[in-house]
């Protein structure tokens, strides 16, 4: 698991690294994302703040902020892709490039569409290097709930960048290593290599990475007989696979974007899953002065 934002400096052009290292140490320590945009200011995200800075590392507004040139962005993409972007075509078509150091870089630009499907990007104009946090006890409230009332299907929700993946990572390790609960077999459908990438663990965790979630869920259910199946950011495409898995007796722990638990079930596929009895518990995350998790019964929200 990464130690800090400085892990990404190897992927960032020298001029920008020089500015980054000149930033106040506290800001740098709290930083969890560096974002480069072609011809636009480079930003550092620390907590819920997006900070712009100049060449000498002074926090400033958009005027005078350090911008990434086209060649700097190309250099960053080349470094992220290990000097061979063509090896990442499949990933780029899903909007990211996996990093050597674990984790991924989100990419954005002009998409190439063939037969209504994104097949790649003809040019990349933004790149986001986001740190994967490891907060070992983040999912402890959920584990306590499981220990008390037994394992039940759970959906984790929050707006983007509030720690859904971090929560799932913590839950996987706690369940797999049996911390605060009996050891469980955990199957992880890690399509984008995010949940368990770089995590050193000694639990009963089987990870199927790189495969589409729907396929991974079916494969894991069939071949690894997990007691709990974990997957990130579920979409309508995985609904059937999740229902099948539930019918096979596997408990699901999944995440979804939502402004709040109250709005979560306005998403039709999530509502359908809840109505099928797949999710009994809703874990709502917030970053109110640290990583917080509020557990609610799905029945109350439906």
């Amino acid at each position: 698991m990464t130690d800090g934002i400085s892990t990404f400096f190897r992927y960032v052009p020298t001029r920008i690294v020089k500015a980054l290292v000149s930033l106040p140490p506290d800001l740098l320590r709290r930083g969890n994302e560096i974002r480069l945009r072609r011809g636009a200011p480079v930003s550092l995200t620390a907590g819920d703040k997006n900070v712009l800075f100049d060449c000498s590392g002074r926090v400033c507004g958009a005027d005078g902020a350090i911008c990434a040139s086209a060649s700097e962005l190309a250099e960053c993409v080349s470094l992220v892709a290990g000097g061979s972007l063509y090896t990442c075509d499949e990933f780029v078509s899903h909007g990211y490039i996996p990093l050597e150091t674990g984790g991924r870089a989100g990419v954005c630009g002009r998409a190439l569409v063939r037969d209504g499907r994104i097949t790649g990007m003809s040019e990349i104009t933004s790149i986001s290097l986001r740190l994967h946090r490891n907060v070992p006890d983040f999912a402890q409230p959920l584990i306590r709930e499981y220990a008390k009332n037994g394992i039940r299907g759970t959906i984790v929700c929050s707006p983007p960048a509030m720690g859904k993946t971090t929560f799932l990572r913590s839950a996987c390790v706690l369940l797999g290593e049996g911390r605060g609960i009996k050891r469980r077999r955990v199957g992880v459908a890690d399509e984008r290599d995010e949940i368990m990438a770089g995590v050193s663990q000694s639990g009963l965790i089987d990870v199927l990475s790189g495969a589409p979630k729907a396929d991974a869920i079916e494969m894991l259910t069939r071949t690894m007989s997990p007691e709990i199946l974990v997957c990130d950011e579920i979409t309508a495409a995985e609904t059937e696979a999740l229902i099948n898995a539930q019918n096979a007796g596997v408990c699901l722990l999944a995440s979804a974007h939502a402004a709040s638990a109250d709005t979560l079930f306005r998403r039709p596929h999530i509502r359908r899953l809840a109505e099928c009895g797949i999710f009994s518990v809703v874990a709502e995350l917030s970053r109110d002065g640290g990583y917080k998790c509020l557990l609610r019964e799905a029945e109350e929200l439906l």
Partner: protein
Amino acid sequence: MSLVLRLLCAGTLVVCAYLIGLSFSAEEKKKLAALEAMRRLLEYMRLRITVTRTPLNELFRSYNDVFLEKHGFLQALRAGTRDIPCRFSEACALLPLKEDALSELTVLGRGLGTLPLCEQEKQLAVCISALEAQSAEMRQKLPARTKSIKTVSVLFGLLAAIILI
């Protein structure tokens, strides 16, 4: 100066001129060899990129070619921490390439490793066919060209001998 000595000097001048001609024609052969070595490398790259999607750094490490090794091309490509387009253009500068071949390779080098698969493949194919056309033309013209270089140099030698002696 005795006649024998004059003839000896004239002979030496002609031989020297011939040797210079030989070295010029060897340079021409080297240019062709460089072109063909680069074409072979690009063919290999195209194959490895399209079939196994091997990353460029790994591909350069595994590739062997006596000519490219001898001129330090592969060493320059493998060494250093700079990005691949920079290393590629620096390595190309080490080869005895003609201007038009060098400009084709420079264009290719700029996009090396920074393009999606289909575009990378297309760019490689364009460069390979350009190098093929150039090397076919050179190969065809080479015998006549080397012959004319040698002839001209011998004639220069003779002319110099007549004027000086």
